[in-house]
């Protein structure tokens, strides 16, 4: 944790410098008589971020923050496994949206989480995989008239049936 905190502070300091650079493209000066330029507000806020990371590093050096006193790893074996399985599942879910549609991706993610990670029976898994995406479809597309991504063309027959129901 101790090493992680100073690395994080360093990365955030770099991010602050990048924000300062981007903001400076719009001018960060103060024009007498008319006030600040377009990049003034974000530039000086990014300076505030940079100064804060300096104080965070100082606190780390003096060992006053809890993380700077900790010898525990940032992620132990359980943490790494959790991040890989759960975090990876979420990334996979979002990546699948443009292929199998939003509702298709929801069904696959629910199958993965409830059956594979949760180890639930098919009695619990089936409604989550089949009924929950349909409920979402009728709420968003039917009631709220919000269209979600429909994925690649092979999902069209399924959408034809569902749209016939609501329109």
């Amino acid at each position: 944790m101790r090493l992680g905190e100073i690395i994080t502070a360093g990365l955030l300091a770099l991010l602050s410098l990048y924000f300062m650079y981007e903001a400076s493209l719009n001018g960060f000066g103060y024009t007498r008589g008319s006030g600040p330029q377009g990049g003034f507000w974000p530039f000086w806020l990014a300076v505030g971020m940079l100064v804060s990371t300096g104080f965070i590093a100082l606190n780390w050096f003096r060992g006053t923050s809890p993380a700077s006193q900790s010898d525990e790893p940032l992620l132990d074996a359980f943490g790494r496994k959790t991040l890989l399985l759960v975090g990876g599942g979420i990334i996979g879910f979002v990546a699948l949206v443009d292929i199998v549609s939003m509702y298709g991706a929801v069904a696959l993610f629910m199958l993965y989480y409830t059956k594979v990670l949760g180890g639930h029976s098919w009695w619990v898994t089936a409604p989550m995989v089949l009924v929950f995406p349909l409920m979402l479809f009728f709420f968003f597309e039917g009631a709220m008239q919000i269209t979600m991504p429909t994925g690649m063309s092979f999902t069209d027959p399924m959408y034809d049936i569902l749209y016939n129901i609501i329109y």
Partner: protein
Amino acid sequence: MEILSLLGDGIVTAVQPLNLMLIVIGVSVGLFIGAMPGLGSVNGVAILLPVTFLVPPGSAIIFLAAIYYGAMYGGAISSITLGIPGASTAVATTFDGRPLALQGKARLALVAAAIGSFTGGTVAVVLFTGFAPALARVALSFGPPEIFALMLLAFATFVGLGGDDIAKTIFSICFGLVLATVGFDQVSGAARLVLFDMNGFLGGISFLVLAIGVYGIGEMLWTIDSMRGGITQSKADYSVKGIVEDSGTTVREGWKGTAIGSFLGFFVGLLPAAGATPASLMSYGIAKMLAKNPEEFGKGAVGGVAAPEAGNNSASTGSMLPMLTLGIPGSPTTAVLLGGMVIWGLVPGPRLFVDEPEFVWGLIGSFYVSNVAAVLVNIAFIPLFIWMLRMPFTVLAPLIFVLSIVGGFAAMKDMFDIWLLLVFGFGAFFLRKFDYPVAPAVLAIVLGPIAEPTMRQSLLMSSGDPMIFFNRPIAAPIMVVAIILILLPVFKYMLDRRKRSAQRG
């Protein structure tokens, strides 16, 4: 007396069978729309606007106002049960509502939200009834310098009174404010901070992307990691006796927050550029500032739920006032309501109270009735919300992830924002590990789009002279209080040093 007579007529109009039915349907629909992550009152009111052409204008606005009320109540539900703010107005409710739910006190949080909302709504509608024209004039005296001073005060309450690491809190606020500037400069119209030259940033970063990422993804990952697989089901339970006990607890522990939210929320709601979101965040900040134990805020304080809920409900009524009396909408939802009134042939403005008294007082009467209907419907649905929480965690967790992604897309309609939401979610997970407070960043991205333009407008008004913030009678005291609060950690540090050196001596 004349006002009471007119109000009596208005309430009689509101409880006509058709209107009463529309109120109950409106608050129920609003409750569920508000509870859905990514959707808020503005979605409900806008989508159901065409439906209102089937009924007379008076009934139509009563229906839309009831949806507005219901959605204000509903936003708290997903904040508490799922940890995802249902709408921007419910972001502050997440700060303490979610910790209470994780401690097995979801029922207490839901009751505190319902009572806070009801009280806020009631206080606001009483103020609305008695002082509408006078308050509208006061609201008009708030220009950009005064609104900027208010925004600074909101940030100051987080810096000066946070129990967290001050450097990390300031970093979080600055980070949120910088994110709020991404997209187009509101004053010059030039593209600004288009990060890594990605066109997706041209549209700016919505607070929802950050809020859902931080609370829906980051918070859930953190919960799963920190609980070490130990949570299978929440301990939340439901009983009528329990609700009565929780009501007592709310009155004892949350009265101050409720009172602050009710009055402050109404006034912030009146201000044209503000609305219910800043009102709820400021109510939370001030309630924390004035609390006996401010360090409990963020860890499950009842006042931390009641204050923002009272604030956002009070503000939602308050924002109707400039709409009706001046024709100026105080929030996006009232802008849609204003559009509806124009379509129905009504002209909002000073003449409305004279030309259409039956309509105006029927609407005001419906506020009272809607408020009662909303609290009853809300409490009636508490068992359903508790049932959701009692699901096995391995079922609830994917539901939260899915609602975060689907709700995020429903609001933003762009996959770029969903990927950004994931980046914020994973980032928040790691920052949380190092005790970076994330709530100030969410506060900042919500208030940033108000703070920056008002600061620049003020400086344009004064030809660049920053003294404009200190030589106006309303802005000056607010600025002074804000600056004192910002400097409070420095004073505390110096005091601690003197105490330590005195002890050594």
